[in-house]
């Protein structure tokens, strides 16, 4: 077979071709150790501090898209055909500082300076997309960047002032857009890439059909989409992942199809890509979506991956279960569908055969007599793993609750519905009494763990209170339904 054995991409201004790329080789190590591009820093190596933020440009349906990513958990093999832009590449006109850099200097946005290149990259991406952002938009763009010195105020000020120092129209990436597009197009040769040593092999399939073939050939391969979880297996736990199959680039897995019956989302769709469609179809998810990780992780992580890794504290399963989502699994050309809730068998065990992969998620349209809620509880508002999450879907007909789906994350070994609480609601008139009873029934449904995120007592109390929050939010009698952090 005619496989390519090297990864090709653009690094700043140059074409690079890297041979022998191992499955677990990261972009950050390549930049710092191989290329000695020292502006990109390692702060945590787990995608949580943003000091390693770089831009990755990629062609999708012919469009060149630049997004911030965490270089620490981005695997080299996933960069095939991409444009990597690091802090060293940033420049203004006539040898001056880039407008973002100048704004950061003038606003005193750096103190120790270690997080600064990462912030500059995040603000750069924001400015390109949205040169006159609101304060909230800036906060969202830097959810994935930690600063321990400044308290953020001067960084926000810099983001808001940047457009005074230069506009995206004059930016070098804007000017080079066509040339870069051509160069990236030229890198696409339609070949599967196979490289690295046998025990640490990286495989980049050329299409979804090719992926099915690859999995038949390597049934034990690690499937890597956004690498926001698998990245940590490597950087934190030093677990071998080879052979690994990289699928983030597969356009066929990136389709979002909106029909009368619902929304079908390809498993490779990232949180960022899904945001607009999801929030339009399911407006109750709008505030929730912004609280999934930070911007860089939303740009990398996929909904398919969030489901497939089976975590009991993933952000999307509870709200998708509440929406009665189904997933499609594929093995070779064989396809099967199952309700998302049935995918999660027990902690660490999902209903997925070794050669199978999650191909898509479909979410039916909601009906007007359904009442929806989506809640995330975490120690810190943004970029935190939930101590508890909930998706509620309660059908009310003529004042009677005729169906209830109450799905929780963080309450058991899997994302799980609260059967007893659902039963307590079903058939009852919509009202405080039913919700009080359902709240009590949660203690039958769940015996949560105590850990560093939350105690069992807090988890069960807050789960009960979220039902109350939901009741207040949808009760016409109640004038007190504010959800503080979503406001």
């Amino acid at each position: 077979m005619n496989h390519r054995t090297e990864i090709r991409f653009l690094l700043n201004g140059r074409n690079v071709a890297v041979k022998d790329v191992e499955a677990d080789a990261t972009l950050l190590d390549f930049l710092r150790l191989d290329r000695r591009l020292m502006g990109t820093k390692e702060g945590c190596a787990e995608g949580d501090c943003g000091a390693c933020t770089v831009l990755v440009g990629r062609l999708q349906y012919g469009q060149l898209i630049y997004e911030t990513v965490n270089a620490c958990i981005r695997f080299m093999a996933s960069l095939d055909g991409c444009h990597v832009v690091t802090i060293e590449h940033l420049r203004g006109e006539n040898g001056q500082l880039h407008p973002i850099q100048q704004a950061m200097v003038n606003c005193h946005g750096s103190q120790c300076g270690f997080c600064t290149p990462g912030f500059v990259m995040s603000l750069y991406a924001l400015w390109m997309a949205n040169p006159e952002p609101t304060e909230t938009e800036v906060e969202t763009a830097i959810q994935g960047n930690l600063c321990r010195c400044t308290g953020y105020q001067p960084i926000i000020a810099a983001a808001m002032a940047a457009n005074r120092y230069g506009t995206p129209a004059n930016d070098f990436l804007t000017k080079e857009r066509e040339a870069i597009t051509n160069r990236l197009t030229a890198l696409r040769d339609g070949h599967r890439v196979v490289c690295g040593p046998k025990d640490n092999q990286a495989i980049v399939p050329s299409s979804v059909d090719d992926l099915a073939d690859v999995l038949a050939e390597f049934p034990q391969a690690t499937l890597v989409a956004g690498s926001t979880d698998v990245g940590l297996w490597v950087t934190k736990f030093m677990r071998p992942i080879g052979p690994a199959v990289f699928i983030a680039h597969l356009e066929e897995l990136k389709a979002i199809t909106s029909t009368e019956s619902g929304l079908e989302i390809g498993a490779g769709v990232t949180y960022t890509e899904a945001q607009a469609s999801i929030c339009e179809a399911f407006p109750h998810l709008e505030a929730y979506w912004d609280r999934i990780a930070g911007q860089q992780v939303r740009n990398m992580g996929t909904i398919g991956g969030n489901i497939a890794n089976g975590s009991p504290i993933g952000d999307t399963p509870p709200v998708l279960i509440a929406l009665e989502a189904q997933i499609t699994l594929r093995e070779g050309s064989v396809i099967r569908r199952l309700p998302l809730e049935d995918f999660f068998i027990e902690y660490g065990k999902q209903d997925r055969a070794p050669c199978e992969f999650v191909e898509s998620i479909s979410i039916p349209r909601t009906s007007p007599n359904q009442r929806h809620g989506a809640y995330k509880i975490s120690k810190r508002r943004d970029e935190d793993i939930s101590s508890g999450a909930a998706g509620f879907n309660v059908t009310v007909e003529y004042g009677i609750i005729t169906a209830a789906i109450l799905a929780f994350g963080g309450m058991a070994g899997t994302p799980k519905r609260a059967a007893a609480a659902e039963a307590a609601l079903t058939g009852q008139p919509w009202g405080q009494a039913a919700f009080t009873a359902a709240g009590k029934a949660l203690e039958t449904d769940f015996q949560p763990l105590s850990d560093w995120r939350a105690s069992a007592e807090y988890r069960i109390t807050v789960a009960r209170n979220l039902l109350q929050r939901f009741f207040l939010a949808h009760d016409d009698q109640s004038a007190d339904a504010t959800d503080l952090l979503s406001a």
Partner: protein
Amino acid sequence: MKHDTITKATQTVSGTVHTNRHHDSAEKHVTGRAEYCDDIGEPQGTLHAYLGVSSVAHGLIKSMDLSAVLAAPGVVGVLTADDIPGENDISPTGLKDEPVFPTEKTEFHGQPLFAVVAESRNAARRAAELAKIDYEVLLHALDPLEAQEAGHPFVTAPLKLERGEIEQGFSVADHWIKGQIKIGGQDHMYLEGQIAFAIPGEDDDVVVHCSTQHPSEAQHMVAHVLGVPSNAVTVNVRRMGGGFGGKESQMNLFAAVAAVAAKKWNCPVKIRPDRDQDMTATGKRHDFVVDYNVAFDECGRIQAVDGVFAARCGYSADLSGPVTDRALLHADNAYFYPHVRLRSRPMKTNTVSNTAFRGFGGPQGVVAAERMIEEIAYALGKDPLEVRKANFYGVAGDGRTLTPYHQEVEDNILPRLISELEETAEYQARRNAILAFNKASKVIKKGIALTPVKFGISFTATWYNQAGALIHIYNDGSIHLNHGGTEMGQGLNTKVAQVVADALQVDFERIKITKTTTEKVPNTSATAASSGTDLNGMAALDAAEQLKARLTDFAAEHWSVDPETVTFRNNMVQVGQDVVSFSDLVRKAYMARVHLSAAGFYKTPKIHWDRAAGKGRPFYYYAYGASCSEVSIDTLTGEYRVERADILHDVGRSLNPVLDKGQVEGAFIQGMGWLTTEELWWDKAGRLRTHAPSTYKIPLASDRPRVFNVNLADWSENRELTIKRSKAVGEPPFMLGVSVFEALSMAVASVADYRECPRLDAPATPERVLLAVERLKAGG
């Protein structure tokens, strides 16, 4: 608030004192060209070390089989206690309770037991996991209360501060309240982790690049571990990616391991732990459990205070002595205690040895003081601010100026500062509005609090209050500035260069700021205790003044004029009727063989401290500040948001207002983080489970107050002769974050109509807030 101030010299020379000037490395920061330790080019053959750690909290090491480690790919060798040529000790106190690697016993989960050295960091890191260590597990105690119950010893001698007649104070008291508060620790979470890079030289020499706030200590420690004199060891640091106290002593281990390995294999050796190891193997802010007993009258005026401060010190003393001392020295915060007894209990625990962190125990003392104020306010149904005002230190002659450690408070500016902030923050009107809001709102509740800070400036270790600087003027007129302080983001180098620019009346750009190195200034103190600018600015001024005097004498002689007629201004020097450029004067001076290098020195006057008696003047002066925070809490989930914070802070006559403001803002957010979302959590086995940013949550941009008004008290001037009458700024504003904690407490108290002090422990995570709400709703 506008940050986008255009840096503009208001005087003829650029970058002089009392002007806004951006951080000297700002352009390097934003372009990624600022060089940190890990960015230094590695010579060929550089090896990498990584630590192998203990997997039990307390146990005898029965055997350590490192054969698999040695056999791992890329491994060059291992380092154990047996490889240490000098002394196996890195205790900064000299108590010899902190080995590089223990030999018989491990005393905390994650304690470094050996190091592996390999051709790459990755190889070393992977190999370190392969050790087979057999332990005889012993009982462990993780927190100060467990440690007290288990009869653990103190790691260092406790302190007692006593003034007045404590028994009598309580016997005549109108009211008294006894309570306990648990105050959590804090990880530094500097973005740049610990790192050391040692390059061996000839003879016993070794150069160590290290991210350290205390190069001299690293130097002395490396020498001591290698068994060589200090003159063989050079420690360099250009800048750190944050320190906050975490690199005052915690770098010793890394510097020592890198140096020992570099000498053993005669190769450059770098060691950089990953974030998990950085957080588990290095010390943090001390957790405290404070038992307090406070007596007070009808007006809320304190009559007597009895406090016991038990701290989680970890397995060794490290800096726990001065940290727990400082907790007691700030347990009065801004309040006069007529009768007082304060005792520390620096408990030995089976956890990593806790260390310096911005405020150095002071914040825990302040939180305890504010808790007592809160208790009084709830007991009497008063606004806590009213109780605060009733208890502030007084003015000379009113009998209310003596601290528990017998130092007179001579510079109290809090009455003015508080009243200004109370007015600009519209405290009273907003408090009334919040009380009304809380009556009407069922789920969301608000709270507001205005809290003061008074923070003592100087190292309590009196000998630390000294500094040196070295200035060279080259014969082209360019200036090379060096001093003993280290740059960790605070802008120390910028401020010191401003002092020199002002003294010599030359442009800031003429002065080259250089790395801190033990080769240029010896026996320096840690850049800590907020003292960096106070000490090093004065030392640099001394050096600059010496050079100026030599140039003046030379000019007077050369032009045959009275030295009085020689003045330096605007890059020029007026000599009698003549004007000569600074560069020309320097060149002429050089030709005339004038010594153009000077070493400056400074020691803080007036201070003395008798620890055994608990008496003296440990502090040269106090820095003050106050903040007013408003929060909303969600009583269904415990989540909260800081709606607004107003700050008025005292930095004396600021050397650089915009940098000082940056320190104030950053410190507030860090202090807020400590008391809200930053939670350290150990499991029963003694493993720290919050050991990376995924599990340990420092504030993000969206956590900062929705409205944030920060001002410096621009009318303040240090009454002491500090550098240009400025005041230290590093630590004092950290405690401004206490107002957020107190505001949360008020919001919680509202669910029981403010009848009860909610007694929130810190950090007030959403969980703690919710459980306190539920507790108060249920009736206490």
